[in-house]
């Protein structure tokens, strides 16, 4: 399907190229590009009944693919494109089921690895067999740049999920940190499962050790920044289970001593202000009296106003 779109865009691109050459050619070429998909099937119905009419627009587009040879993409590139498409689909197929709870790193790293390898092949500057480079023809010969955009979306997803932190170099396996975390997580979850039925206080007591271990491990990993979305998500879920579902958070217990200490503290300023009000000697200010001309000293503003 992607190759199809590419051919179509190639056709349009040629229109653009031609249009810069001459006006008359442009007119005919654009007519060919735009009108033919609509008109040709009708013609096909009349002339060649072999082809099922109108139901096969692919065919009508394929008719267009008879561009001069140097503009056509080579067989090698076509092959690369096909492989890219397959692996792309495989990766996306893997991603979607791993969306909730998030397991995108642990389950799909290998398919991402192969996808990346194919894309590297496409985007490499080195010439393939037959001295062709598919970089220009596949990645940036049109405005849509479909292959590039498709891949960069997934690449963005990958980098935002920080999966690199949990996968060894070369997409071989999960890192040992990740594996250790998963093991600890499993331990905690098994514990949760074991005590889930009965009283939750039981659970809180018995699973506290393993939960605490897990929490500490997570804290350490957070500091080393060896985290990926899988770890974050599973930890979030576990924490939610622990605090919300099982209600194992620390309760607010010592309200009385806190209130006592704070009311004592709040009481101090009152004593302070009262005592300074009662005992401190009041400071008085002396006023500076103006020296005025004799005749005016008796005349106050108030007098003058009235």
């Amino acid at each position, binding site marked *: 399907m992607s190759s199809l779109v590419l051919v179509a865009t190639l056709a349009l691109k040629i229109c653009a190229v031609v249009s810069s050459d001459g006006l008359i050619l442009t007119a005919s070429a654009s007519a060919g590009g735009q009108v033919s998909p609509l008109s040709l099937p009708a013609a096909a119905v009349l002339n060649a009944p072999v082809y099922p009419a109108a139901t096969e627009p692919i065919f009508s587009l394929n008719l267009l693919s008879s561009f001069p040879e140097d503009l056509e993409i080579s067989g090698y590139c076509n092959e690369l494109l096909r492989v890219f498409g397959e692996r792309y689909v495989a990766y996306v197929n893997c991603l979607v089921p791993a969306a909730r709870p998030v397991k995108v790193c642990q389950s799909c790293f290998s398919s991402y690895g192969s996808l990346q390898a194919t894309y590297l092949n496409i985007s490499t500057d080195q010439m393939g067999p037959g001295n062709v480079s598919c970089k220009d023809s596949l990645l940036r010969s049109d405005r849509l740049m479909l292959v590039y955009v498709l891949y960069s979306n997934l690449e963005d997803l990958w980098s935002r999920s920080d999966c690199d932190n949990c996968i060894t170099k070369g997409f071989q396996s999960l890192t040992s940190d990740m594996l250790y975390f998963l093991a600890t997580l499993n331990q905690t979850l098994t514990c949760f499962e074991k005590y889930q039925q009965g009283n939750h206080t039981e659970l809180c007591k018995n699973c506290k050790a393993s939960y605490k271990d897990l*929490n500490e491990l997570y804290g350490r990993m957070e500091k080393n920044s060896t985290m990926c979305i899988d770890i974050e998500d599973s*930890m*979030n879920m576990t*924490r*939610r289970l*622990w*605090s*919300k579902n099982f209600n194992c*958070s*620390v*309760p*607010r*217990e*010592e309200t009385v*001593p*806190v*209130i*006592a*200490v*704070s009311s004592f*503290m*709040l009481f*101090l*300023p009152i004593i*302070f*202000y009262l005592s*300074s*009000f009662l005992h*401190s000697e*009041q*400071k*008085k*200010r*002396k*006023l*500076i*009296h*103006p*020296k*005025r*001309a*004799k005749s*005016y000293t008796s*005349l*106050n*503003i108030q007098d*003058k*106003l009235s």
Partner: protein
Amino acid sequence: MANITKKVSWSSRADESGAAGEGTPLLNGSEQPRLFRQSLDYDNIENQLFLEEERRLSHMGFRCLEISRWVVCGLIGFLTGLIACFIDIVVEKLAGIKYQVVKENIEKFTEVGGLSISLILWALLNCAFVMVGAIIVAFFEPIAAGSGIPQIKCYLNGIKIPRVVRLKTLVVKVCGVICSVVGGLAVGKEGPMIHSGAVVAAGVSQGRSTSLKRDFKVSVLFNHYAFMPATARAGGTMFLGGVLFSLEEGASFWNQMLTWRIFFASMISTFTLNFFLSIYNNKLGQLSSPGLINFGRFEGDTVAYNLYEIPLFIAMGAVGGLLGALFNVLNYWLTIFRIRYVHRPCLQVMEALLVAAVTATVSFTMIYFSNDCQPLDPDHTEEYPLQLFCADGEYNSMATAFFNTPERSVRSLFHNQPGSYNPLTLGLFTLTYFFLACWTYGLAVSAGVFIPSLLIGAAWGRLCGILLTWADPGKYALMGAAAQLGGIVRMTLSLTVIMVEATGNVTYGLPIMLVLMTAKIVGDYFVEGLYDIHIKLQSVPFLHWEAPATSHWLTAREVMSSPVTCLNRVEKVGTIVDTLSNTSTNHNGFPVVAIFVLFSIQPAKLCGLILRSQLIVLLKHKVFVELARSRLTQRKLQLKDFRDAYPRFPPIQSIHVSQDERECMMDLTEFMNPTPYTVPQETSLPRVFKLFRALGLRHLVVVDDENKVIGLVTRKDLARYHLGKHGLEELQLAQT
């Protein structure tokens, strides 16, 4: 009230104090004879010495002078930036350590119990820092208390407040502000930074420090007039805001060159700050890192505001004005109480300690009892999130407001995602922080009111935003912050620019302006701005922009002081010494007249004006007529000798004059200012006022139609008139 005798008096027993004030001599001469508020001499003394020097100065020399002024401005900017950088880094480091310790402690005790111990630890840590800050302020340099902006405002207005621009003040101020911010008080560091910038500026342009006993010979560059520019520096990033601040807040006298130079100094200071911060953050050479006051940029859709929102903003401005007025009134009564009863240094330190402890307690209690738990953003900036009793993975959102330096809290109120605060949390926070900030301002610690006001405003502004539901709360937090700050300090021009600069959004220029205008109008209806209140309470003869309205019927004759102590053109040394040593008058400028008999009422013809400082220098160098005749080789006194004594002239007591010398004569002709400003006695008060404000006068001689001295107008004579509720009122200035 400090100075309206007719209404409120200092004492609780009004009449008695009034009577006492009249009875006692104005000064107990022995104690602090020269701690009167003095005015600054901005006026050039165009005496013969000055003219001679000007004649000697070549064209080239004049050019050099101009260039060296620029260099000095750059230096001022550089040093200020350095200080700002120092304060910033030290506060960040120390506060980081404190919060880390408390956080670990709280985490430890949340599980095993004993959180009251964490509370005590927090309070003790706060107290320890605040104690250091309060002790150095209360015992070593009381003038360094508060934000320093009122003092700088007075200084720019032309009033010399003793010790306000000393190096010692600078050191105490810097250490004090670090201590009080780290100590968790509801304070900011911007006001003190402005003050320290002013000290640096004044210090550099004077080029000397008595504390260090050094003289760098810079003062030649600046006459009195020119070192003002310098004073105008501003804190950190607010480069444009700083320039406008000095324009708005003070500066009696202004010209284009000055503005340009201040701008230059501010830019240099910002550059320095960024440069050193970039080194500190290991990003050498990255000079665009945001500076000191920076609340982060509003990005994306949140920037947009709609036409229908403008009335809402204006309403918020009105609320800010009301709350600001309430803040000011409360702080006013508190300050009066403090002046009356809490005036001993040890009491002041104790009060500061109590405030620190209570602040910690209240914050802790708020955090402890808060049920508002929120998960953190993926790109959160909280450095010390507290979980406490929240579910794992969630954090106490009251703690993001309280358990942080105020500046960071402001930033999180502006920028945290919608939904990261409960309305209840914000309401409680506003309420407590309002009273805490009000209580804190005016303590004997160096601390500014900028950031706390912004924080209060941001909290209730965000609350408004949440209640409006459709809007982005961060935008409303910004408007609330502007409204609250405007309501408290009542600045308009510079605040608009500072707010726009601090958030980096020019889009908000108009709404912020409207908000600030509304806040000022509403607030002014009730009470003055906080800085003005404090200036008034310190009984400073502050001259506002305009003379009080409806004062045109007052003439110079009614305003002036009379009779005037004058000196003769050739005066006996004994008379001069006696006049200068008379502690009950302590005058500073003396009109020089043709023939004058001391203590006679008869006026005499004016020929010039001479200042106390000049007389003291003359006495010190013994420039007596008799001596000049006997010792012909004696070096002629130059302007340099006067400048060397600047800015701290020795008191008259330190000058020894023998009995023989008392009989000598002194010729003042050469040294006096032969053309002092004078006004006829029928001049109206606004006219006199304008002269003072525009020319930076200190003395204005009132003469009659025969040019005979009949009175003298000083700043104190003008500042006592003010427009009250019942028309024009005359205030009594208290002595401090």
